[in-house]
């Protein structure tokens, strides 16, 4: 989703809403009239004389307590920006924790302790749903989490190689480094896991030898 704004140079610029919320764009007025226009400077004609010489209002919107026109959108943006920032921070924390847990699994690879480390990782992956699902901004990282969960549910832990586990670690680590985790990150991670022979979907046989004729 994008919002079209007039840039100071006079050309229209499309800003993705996600970026708007992160406070990286000029101040925006999301007022009721739908005019997604750059906010005019305070004390300009909005509160002074109109174009036809008529005095519209000499009281500023803020002074008369009208939060709807001017202040509310700014607050909303600030709030949204803070929320997005908070969700990114929360995701980074989760990703760091998950990456350290898969690191533990890699360390204990080949020993009985690996089972315990895997169980802890699975529990943490599952718990991360609640935090990540609360923000749409982090939905693509949640998809990476479900991808890893799918892989762990499809894989026999005793047959997993260290190299395969390192691929899982790389997939989870995407959340630590990136400021925005996008669908492309998810798609790339899925292809990479598949490329290393890591199953991410259920395996089955269509039938017994007798039945195994035609899936149509």
């Amino acid at each position, binding site marked *: 989703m994008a919002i079209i704004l007039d840039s100071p140079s006079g050309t229209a610029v499309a800003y993705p809403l996600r970026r708007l919320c992160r406070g990286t764009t000029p101040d925006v007025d999301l007022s009721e009239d739908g005019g997604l226009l750059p906010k005019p400077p305070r004390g300009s004609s909005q509160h002074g004389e109109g174009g036809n010489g008529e005095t519209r209002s000499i009281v500023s919107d803020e002074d008369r307590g009208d939060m709807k026109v001017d202040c509310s959108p700014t607050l909303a943006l600030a709030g949204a920006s803070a929320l997005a920032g908070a969700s990114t921070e929360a995701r980074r924390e989760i990703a760091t924790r998950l990456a350290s847990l898969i690191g533990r699994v890699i360390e204990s690879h080949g020993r009985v302790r690996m089972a315990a480390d895997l169980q802890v990782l699975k529990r943490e992956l599952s718990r991360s749903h609640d935090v990540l699902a609360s923000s749409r901004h982090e939905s693509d990282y949640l998809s990476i989490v479900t991808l890893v969960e799918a892989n762990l549910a499809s894989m026999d832990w005793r047959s997993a190689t260290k190299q395969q586990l390192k691929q899982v670690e790389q997939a989870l680590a995407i959340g630590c480094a990136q400021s925005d985790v996008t669908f492309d990150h998810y798609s790339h991670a899925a292809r990479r896991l*598949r490329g290393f022979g890591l199953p991410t979907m259920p395996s*089955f046989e269509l039938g*017994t*030898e007798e039945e195994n004729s*035609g899936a149509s």
Partner: protein
Amino acid sequence: MPRKTAAFFCDTTVLYFKLHGHSLHKAAVRNAAAAGRLVTSNFVRGEYIRGYVVGLIDLFFAIKEENSVPDGISVFSAEMGNRPRKLANAFQSTVRWLCDHEDWKNVERTLRRLGDLIRSLLFDLDDEFPTRSRDPLACELGILTFPRSTYDSDHIFDFYEEFMAVLERPTCRQCEFRDEQQKELNAKGVDLHSKQQRSKYSQYEGYVKQAEWVDKAVRSHLQHPSCWYCERLGDTIIALSAPSGMTILTGDKKSFPALADILGKPVEVIPPVQELRPQYGSGYRRRRKKGRKRGDRRKEQ
């Protein structure tokens, strides 16, 4: 090892083998890919969607509506008897797979996992089978897809709505395809479905059933397309629409060998896992023996 060919025209079983199959089946498809390019069609893709993908969407909505994973699964499984046996096996395995996840009884988490799985099925399918031959039927189900963007459960709703819209009023080339094929077969003098053919190929149960449906379709006075026919005549339509110069690749040994023989098209059948096992198993045992010897030698040193 399959014989060399320019390309293999893969039927639906091959899609299942490559995406969900036993490692031996996956290896068999890989071997085929080494001998010739793997090609499929939108009709085959549509069969996968109608059979497996939409089945999982049913499960998704059953869980959502029941607001309980076990109840949703039980409602879904109650209808399993109405599904083809092979698909029922696939769904049972998928349900087991879903229940292998941590906190699988948590509705939100399971729905998210299932939703992500459903859309990734088609993403993976398109990655694994990027080459398609022209689909003479112009099946509309086969072109349905999910947006390649951030997950949204609305995508599942939209997909289901589009699917139902096609099912209710398909505007494909089914009727034209039927007429064209009838003319072509008559001109070549090919007998696809007569009683004599059915008794000649009676050991191919799948073919006999297909031939009965073809007979019904030929006598049908329906003036508009119906997905009902394609659901039953899938194997025949795939065999008829296999492009010349390509070998039909299938895991279905009960109908394709007969259909291919009648139509004079080459076919390669991937055997069931049970038949693949011995040849791979012996190799595995040989490697293990060698390894043990090496280990023993190391100990001696």
